[in-house]
């Protein structure tokens, strides 16, 4: 069948497929800022999914990594006067460092206890940044992250122009997606899936489960930190809400909506979630009720999410075997 061949082709070149979609994406969106938002939160959900969908560890504290990435990138620019690329690196490094600490403490627990420990530690990060007003602006958030032009290989790019901004951010997102795809395809990617399936068996096979979990936790934190750093550049401010646990919950919703444990799922989830939010807010202030209702329909009737259900349906008809993963 032709559909089958196309799907398997997409699966084999999944990074290319996502990038191709994202290249034309802003042209079909109502406005560029929404497209940029989807780009950033898509990456956030992909980072989260590495831990949740592929390793089977449900963190309720991932806002900490998005927020720390944003704040440290912002602080590096506002207080440190660093160039934008060094500020992004600072955000990613800080998130990874916080990931080492939170991960080290949380991976000792499993299941619901892991979720609760990450939630609690995430809240500690929230209050720490809330109180450190001198650096973070406290309740008002961090303001004044001005990046107007970006020098890239001798080019002067106007970062205020939304479409240019979109493509600059896309370059980072594309690189991160390539890295995630590479990791998922690697021997280590097989180990984390084995951990999700059966931890005891993975250890009996000779794998140090605690070390693998910590490594994937830090990788996940770093990718979410990159999403955060890009968001700081996009918004020019860092709202304190970035660190709020509702933001952690959003990553869970996006993954479930799109389909956890799949490469395309989180991005689709982020796009649908933010698009719905955008449409719903235009006619009701109770947009969370609309999104919540749709979310409940998915959890109850399509637990595999949009991409997962689609692939499952096609597979039942003997199509697109490779594309499901």
């Amino acid at each position, binding site marked *: 069948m032709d559909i089958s061949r196309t799907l398997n082709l997409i699966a084999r070149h999944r990074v290319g497929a996502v990038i191709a979609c994202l290249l034309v994406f802003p042209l079909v969106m109502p406005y560029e800022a929404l497209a940029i938002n989807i780009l950033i939160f898509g990456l956030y959900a992909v980072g989260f999914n590495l831990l949740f969908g592929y390793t089977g560890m449900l963190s309720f504290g991932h806002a900490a990594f998005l927020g720390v990435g944003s704040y440290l990138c912002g602080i590096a620019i506002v207080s440190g006067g660093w160039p934008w690329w060094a500020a992004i690196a600072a955000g990613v490094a800080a998130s990874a460092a916080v990931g080492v600490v939170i991960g080290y403490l949380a991976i000792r627990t499993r299941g619901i206890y892991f979720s609760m420990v990450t939630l609690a530690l995430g809240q500690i990060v929230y209050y720490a940044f809330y109180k450190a007003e001198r650096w973070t602006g406290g309740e008002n958030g961090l303001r004044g992250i001005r990046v107007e032009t970006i020098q890239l290989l001798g080019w002067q790019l106007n970062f205020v122009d939304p479409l240019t901004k979109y493509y600059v951010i896309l370059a980072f997102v594309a690189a991160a997606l390539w890295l995630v795809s*590479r*990791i998922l*395809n*690697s*021997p*280590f*990617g*097989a*180990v984390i*899936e*084995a951990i999700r*399936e*059966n931890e*005891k*068996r993975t*250890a*009996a*096979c*000779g*794998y*140090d*489960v605690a*070390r*693998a979990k910590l*490594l994937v936790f830090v990788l996940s934190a770093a990718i979410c930190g990159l999403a955060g750093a890009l968001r700081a550049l996009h918004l020019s401010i860092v709202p304190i809400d970035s660190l709020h646990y509702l933001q952690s919950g959003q990553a869970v919703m996006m993954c479930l909506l799109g389909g956890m444990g799949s490469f395309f799922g989180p991005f689709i989830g982020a796009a649908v979630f933010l698009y719905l939010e955008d449409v719903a807010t235009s006619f009701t202030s109770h947009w969370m009720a609309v999104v919540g209702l749709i979310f409940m329909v998915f959890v109850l009737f399509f637990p595999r999410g949009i991409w997962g259900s689609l692939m499952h349906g096609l597979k039942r008809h003997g199509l697109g075997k490779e594309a499901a993963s």
Partner: protein
Amino acid sequence: MSSGTPILEVENVTQRFGNFVALNQVSVAFQPGKLTAIIGPNGAGKSTFFNVLSGAFAPTSGRVRFQGRDITGLAQHEFARIGIAKSFQITNVFKQLSAHENVRVAAQMREARFELLRPRASLRSLIDKADHLLERVGLAALRDKTAADLAHGQQRALEIAMALASDPVLLLMDEPTAGMSPEETTVMMGLISALAAERTLVLVEHKMKLVMGLCERLIVLHHGEFLAEGTPDEIRNNAHVRRVYLGEG
């Protein structure tokens, strides 16, 4: 007793769970190249003993030595690396992965544990090794099937292929025929005797009849204590053992 250094040696092992003594001062030595079974009636401490041997937990007191090296309290993942593999009593496979991927992941342990950027598909020898092992346990035709969709006996066979994938010197099996149909049991016993020709094998078994014709040595536990050791004939004629098994009915 046979001569030579034992491959696995258990010395005065005691295991307590709260006030309950599951194993009491058990000392046993396993000779290399032999197929040994640990038997005993229900509650004899066989499973606890298996867990101590295979590193699921460290004993309350006593030592375990492998090829002369003290391995008491060694981390679970180290066991496979030094050459001790196990198959569980309750089937433990990676349910959502294909049969082939289950074995391939297990085989990968020796070559690539923390490689993040090399594609899995480039490790061609592991793919072939997994295929070879699937063929060995009779699952070659089911290579692409999801493990969860395999029959119970097939999942047990898959587990054995996974255990073999780490090239173990010593293979430990906890009730390998538990829950199997008579046909599946026959196939499994054939596989066990074939495997025993290549390496040291220790199995824990509840059904005494089953191991009598299969094993070279038997160790009998009763109420957490060492009761007897010997060839099947010696065990069959041992007055203590007869009393324990007949007493149980």
